């Protein structure tokens, strides 16, 4: 009946399709939903409609009074803007790589944590902490104490004077983001591991499955919903990454590490080009919607809106 709840060992209360209706007419029952719905529509949809409106105008704050309609010209400019296309590519690379690697690391750490050992609680506390610090603090921390060419920890470990941020800007930014999001993935996957029925694992070992085999054939399929959830939540936040790029590389050198959020920000708040940046915003929304149509379907599976525990 509920979302991720695990069939094994749940209370028999779920065994029968007990009608969950609570008295109240349909109209009245809709009422509690409305404030939240109206609020979210107002705060998220109205600005977007304005973005759409601005995107058809030539409007630069540096030249007051020059505001006028230009039709689709901003869009033409956006698609011929190689920086925009580069930023789009960077965004895709950054999101895919960061989600995948943090998921993989998270899986590894979760498996390590899913056993009894001395100091388990403390180790878990350590591991979740990067998720709890300000991303801004994390970004500055990595920029300075990790990546600094003369005094950074990497300099000390490798003994080179490599300027990581200018030679490998994307990799550096991604490393920081992965570091920040791995704890999130670890926690989610750990929750999945701990919800696994011990009897199923025991059954597998009685059946003669090796530990690796058990993990691949039993545990991973069990985790799939948790992995989907982690992927989606992670992607939603990582695709919007701004802090790390803003604070570590400013999108540079050049535009080597510029992603879409940072580029649009730059055009709007440094170039003051409202029309252009709005058009980019609209394009990003449309692209996101295309991806999200597929993602939402996945999401509905992950959350099982239909309420079906198979």
């Amino acid at each position, binding site marked *: *009946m*509920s979302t*991720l*709840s*695990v069939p094994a060992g749940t209370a028999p209360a779920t065994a029968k399709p007990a009608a*969950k209706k609570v008295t109240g007419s349909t109209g009245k029952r809709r009422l*509690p*939903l409305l*404030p*939240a719905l109206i*609020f*979210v529509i107002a*705060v*998220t949809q109205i600005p977007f409609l*304005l*973005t759409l409106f*601005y995107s058809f105008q030539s409007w630069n704050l540096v030249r007051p009074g020059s505001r006028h309609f230009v039709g689709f010209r901003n869009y033409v400019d956006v698609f011929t803007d190689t920086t925009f296309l580069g930023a789009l590519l960077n965004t895709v690379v950054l999101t895919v790589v960061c989600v995948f690697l943090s998921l993989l690391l998270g899986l590894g750490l979760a498996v*390590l944590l899913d056993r*009894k050992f001395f100091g388990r609680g403390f*180790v878990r*506390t*350590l*591991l*979740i*902490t*990067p998720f*709890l*610090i*300000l*991303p*801004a*603090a994390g970004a*500055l*921390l*990595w920029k300075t*104490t*990790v990546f600094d060419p003369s005094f950074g*920890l990497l300099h*000390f470990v490798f003994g080179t004077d490599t300027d990581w941020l200018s030679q490998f800007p994307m990799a550096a930014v991604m490393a920081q983001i992965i*570091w920040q999001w791995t704890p999130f993935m670890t926690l989610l996957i750990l929750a999945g591991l701990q919800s696994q029925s011990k009897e199923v694992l025991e059954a597998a*070992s009685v059946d003669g499955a090796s530990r690796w085999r058990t993990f691949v054939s039993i545990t991973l399929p069990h985790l799939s919903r*948790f992995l989907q959830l982690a992927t989606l*939540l992670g992607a*939603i936040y990582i695709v*919007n990454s701004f*802090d790390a790029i*803003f604070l570590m590389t400013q999108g540079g050198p050049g535009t080597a590490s510029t992603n*879409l959020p940072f580029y*649009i920000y730059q055009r*709007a708040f440094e170039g003051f080009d409202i029309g252009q940046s709005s058009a980019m*915003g*609209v394009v990003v929304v449309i692209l*996101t*919607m295309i991806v*999200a149509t597929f*993602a*939402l379907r996945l999401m*509905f599976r992950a*959350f099982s*809106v239909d309420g079906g525990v198979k």
Partner: protein
Amino acid sequence: MSTATATASPAATDTAPPPQRKTKRRYGPGTLTVATWIIAILFVFPLLWMILTAFKQENDAYTDPPKLFFSPTFDQISGVLNSGFLPYLGNSAFVTVISTLLVLLLGIPAAYALSLAPVKGTKNALGFFLSTKMLPIVAAIIPLYVISQNTNLLDTVWALIILYTAMNLPLAIWMMRSFFLEVPGEMIEAARIDGANLPTLLRKIIMPVVAPGIAATALICVIFSWTEFFYAVNLTAARAGTVPVFLVGFITSEGLYWAQLSAAALLASLPVMIVGWIAQNHLVRGLSMGAVK
């Protein structure tokens, strides 16, 4: 019946998770544990280093090789506290608390309507809420800036409160909905037979049962509000700035002094770090949307 009464405590473990799992270990118990510890410490080393650096003098911070042992000092901490940190901390606390309360105020009834009293269109409403999370926030920042300016909300805490509420509400509704769905149907029926009307049912039966889930949701909202950067940097400054704004302002005005920066980063993160440490289990529960009790 009398035989059953005698066995109160052993049977109490009926529902409690089995205290430990028996796993056969091929390696001695020590090897993997040591490896886990080493990996964990390596993983959080940048963070540990930040904490160390926060208690260094600047000249101990810039050394090659890095210094592990030094005479600790509170100079940097007090330096940060004396450079106008507290108002930012106040803003962060205010924005976080109020927006989280608003999320609960708006979200609890919505989650209830989408779970225990579902109406037609439930799926669409859920889909809509989720889809707003997928809208890239940059796409709306320009109008938000313009609107805030025109309504005199620019550089006020209220602009952030409104935005953070809208930002966290969809996920919160999803989470709380799954907690509501876990309320056993038979228990609600029992309460109705006992004579509970809707307000009583909500107040006396459902809310106490979902309270841990709501706490978990609130914790997630607190974390996301406290650490939010983009809106804060673009819509607030000296007057209503939150701790991330302080951090950015701090480096631009002071230059990159590592020890001081580390102290500032530590202080800015500390409240949420402590809350998160204490409520770890809630965090797991919230993130996994009630999959783990």
